[in-house]
């Protein structure tokens, strides 16, 4: 066999099931790829010994009835993994080894997979380019000067470079969908509450949601099925029956109504993005879907609302990193207050500090009503926009990002321009809805671009089906040359 890693997860699973390849062979092939791709800086930690051990165990006693039989997987370093260092891309957790496993990763392992390593990400998932990581920026396999997107940049890079057959990320404002768009891959942010947040290092609790990142829609369905499910340890987890997304995947979308929101045509959007959107509409129309113009009038307030709500929650969520019980503690500091100050000054990077300061400010007495409370009200209006629209439509089609991957360093010192990258993804998190980014084409530089499908709450199956039909008719192929090896 030529390259056993340059295939979809679904194909790889078939190869394992039909014994064309063993779990050990697969694992060794990925280890080889990872060792040859150090330039990409996609991994913070590798767990090769553990993976080899697990793959051997699988081969000795294989269970092919599982969803992910003998499949090695690397995951974002925001998921706590038992006995494996978990950094969240931060210096403050540089030495943190959890004694527990996040529910989502445990679900993956329970379905037959095992850990290959922990993937780089923006510090505490705060960033859109993976440049805020304490462990250095990650490079996009699409081009050696390009960011892989963020915050799940290590995940998108590793996936596109065949360093893992599929992966998972977290999405607070676009952290799965934007990196997927930048690397020509598929990324899904599920309905808030579909995947447990237990054991995931928290950024903004009311927005955080874990989701799959894969090469194909089918892979995405398999991974979502494996990772999701009710968890009584997370009070915001939705208690519902588990769905069989991959088995129920259908490519017939005839008669479905697709909403096209006028507010997603923003100023200064590159022409290619608009062209791509038109292409997407045409494909869906040709497949028998009906296009309907809709309005989501509060869209323009989504970004400012997000940059109040998310930092507010983050400022409180990150208070626990104080050097007292675990993680980094500064050796200086004469008393408790000084120890806190030094530990947090040395432990956190600039972007994290910026958001803690913004969050602290908007919650402060005298400012709470003007910022946090107002943002919560606007959030309700944004949600209502979607609710109203979804009375008449099945899904919404928009671009995933306003541009393709930008250059490393290009926006590093301009946070607002960086934040603008999330303009199409953020409203979905505020509304708690599921959304999928699927590769749809390339811009004039040949860099991938994605389109976003937004669904009703818990309507993952429908947007996966639309994506599945789209994928078959789009003709996109990710042309990544392995320039790094």
């Amino acid at each position, binding site marked *: 066999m030529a390259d056993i890693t340059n295939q979809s997860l679904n194909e790889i699973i078939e190869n394992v099931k039909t014994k064309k390849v063993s779990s050990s062979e697969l694992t060794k092939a990925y280890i080889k790829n990872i060792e040859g791709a150090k330039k990409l800086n996609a991994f913070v930690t590798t767990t090769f010994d553990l993976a080899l051990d697990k793959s051997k165990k699988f081969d000795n006693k294989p269970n092919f009835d599982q969803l992910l039989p003998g499949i090695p997987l690397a995951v974002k370093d925001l998921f*706590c993994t038992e006995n494996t260092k*978990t950094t*969240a891309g931060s210096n403050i*957790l540089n030495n*943190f080894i*959890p*004694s*527990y496993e*996040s529910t989502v990763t445990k679900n993956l392992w329970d379905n037959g997979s095992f850990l290959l390593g922990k993937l780089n990400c923006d510090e505490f998932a705060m960033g859109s380019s993976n440049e805020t990581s304490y462990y250095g920026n990650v490079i996009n396999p699409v081009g050696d000067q390009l960011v892989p997107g963020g915050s799940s940049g290590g995940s998108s890079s590793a996936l596109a470079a065949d360093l893992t057959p599929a992966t998972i990320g977290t999405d607070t404002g676009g952290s799965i969908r934007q990196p997927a768009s930048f690397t020509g891959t598929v990324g899904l942010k599920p309905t808030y509450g579909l995947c447990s*947040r*237990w*054991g*995931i*290092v*928290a950024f*903004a*609790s*009311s927005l955080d949601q874990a989701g799959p990142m894969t090469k194909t829609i089918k892979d995405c369905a398999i991974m979502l099925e494996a990772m999701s499910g009710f968890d*009584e*340890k*997370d*009070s*915001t987890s939705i208690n519902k029956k588990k769905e069989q997304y991959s088995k129920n995947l259908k490519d017939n979308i005839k008669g479905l109504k697709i909403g096209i929101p006028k507010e997603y045509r923003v100023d200064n959007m590159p022409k290619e993005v608009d062209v791509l959107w038109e292409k997407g509409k045409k494909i869906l129309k040709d497949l028998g879907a009906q296009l309907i113009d809709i309005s989501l009038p509060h869209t323009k307030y989504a970004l400012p609302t997000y940059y109040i709500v998310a930092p*507010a*929650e983050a*400022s*409180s969520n*990150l*208070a*626990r990193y*104080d050097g*007292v*019980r*675990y993680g980094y503690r500064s050796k200086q500091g004469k008393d*408790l*207050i000084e120890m*806190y100050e030094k530990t947090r000054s040395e432990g956190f990077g600039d972007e994290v500090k910026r958001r803690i300061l913004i969050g*602290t400010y908007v*919650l*402060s*007495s005298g400012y*709470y009503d003007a910022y*946090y409370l107002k943002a919560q009200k606007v959030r309700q209006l944004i949600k209502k926009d979607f609710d109203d629209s979804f009375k008449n439509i099945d899904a919404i089609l928009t671009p995933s990002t306003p541009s393709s991957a930008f250059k490393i360093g290009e926006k590093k010192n301009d946070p607002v321009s960086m934040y603008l990258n999330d303009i199409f993804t953020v409203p979905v998190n505020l509304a708690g809805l599921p959304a999928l980014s699927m590769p749809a084409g390339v811009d004039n530089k040949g860099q991938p671009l994605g389109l976003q499908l937004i669904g009703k709450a818990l309507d993952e199956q429908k947007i996966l089906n639309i994506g599945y039909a789209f994928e078959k008719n789009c003709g996109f192929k990710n042309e990544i040359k392995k320039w790094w090896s």
Partner: protein
Amino acid sequence: MSKEKFDYFIKGEKGKYEVVIGLEVHAQVLSKSKLFSGSSTKFGANPNNQVSLIDSAFPGMLPVINEECVKQAVRTGLGLNAKINNYSVFDRKNYFYADLPQGYQISQYKNPIVGEGKVLLDMPYGPKEIGIERLHLEQDAGKSIHDMDPSNTYVDLNRSGIALMEIVSKPDLRSPDEVNAYIKKLRSIMRYLGTCDGNMQEGSLRADVNVSVRKEGDTNFGTRCEIKNVNSIKFMQMAIEYEAARQVELIENGKKIDQETRLFDTKKNETRSMRSKEDAHDYRYFPDPDLLPLKLEQKLIDDLKKSLPELPDKKKERFVKEYGLNTYEANVLVSEKEISDYYEEVAKLSDKKLAATWMMGDLFAMLNDRGLDISKSPISAKHFAELVQAIKSGEISGRIAKEVFEIMVESGDNPKKIIESKGMKQQSDPKELEKMINEILSKNKDKVDQYKAGKEKLFGFFVGQVMKLSGGKANPQLTNEILKKLLKG
């Protein structure tokens, strides 16, 4: 009952000042596990032995509400005649401290689980109603230990995350005595309900005390100071007295009172400024996004209401009506559930009024001397009832009963056995007594003559002789009657 007049004022040079007090009582919820984790709440474990990953705020850990704690708060609210809110919200109160692992305390701010209610106090000057502003659920913090090491502070997180009820009173209290009565009443209600053990030594009940003063007759409140975390009634009373006097002195000297948080120094018996209003923490309250709002079904509240035990106010009424006790006796006997249970068991088997008298006298004195709760009483309710009945039936005299009581305490035996084996039965046979008295009278002819000549004081002497001869067992009533009859003759 004698109606005294309320009279607690601070006398200044320029007049009398009324003291206005409001309490924020922190009562530890009686529950097996903590408010948002499964860790044990047992007191006295080794440091950091009852701490889960949630209590110590490890990355990715999430709180899940303990339903039992919610029920306990509802029960307490019902016991305080308060409005139960079907919708309440948990908020984060943000501040940094070494024994606060999350960097915030989960509490309830704008939407507490329990709203307004009231508590009734029996004061010597009549009944007084104290308004309850609210009751909310919140997490306790851990404990910082500063005196174990000269250069380090140790942190014990066993307490971290234990459920507390913060019960906020209206500023309706007017004296240290009322504070004493209020705390005791709250404690009694919660112990009846089984929602808080009220153990102040173990820190299950503590209070922040808000104190202000105003000229007698003024209707506006003065500026208040908050005395933080006082853990005994005595210290609360001392702190109030000190603080009220301090405030009066400031006013009389034309100075302003700063609204501030103060600490009570129990060694120096004074309050000290902790932080001023300007330095007050900005807690940045906001709804905890890890928890959904708490919605209570009306049925749950109704069911809890139906299952409430009889509370002290109701029980007191019943004791007066059913057992013929006066309000003072009833008040004392309902103050603790265990005491009222003991009393009712005794009253079932013996004279109700006499039982109350003997319980509040000898039994309480003995328990007090030995530092025992009634649940640990060396005399069972059944034996105590037998003793009361022996007195009532005249089988033994009150004086002998005291001796029997002492023996019961030491031996744990039943009174019948003691009375019989020690021959302590009262001599109530009139023939026997007459024989004995005649013998005494014939031996003391001179005294009989003196008595008959008008020296009536000598009657006591004869009684004493009878008692001496009978070894204290002569029935005093009969002895009196027979003596009188024979001395006349």
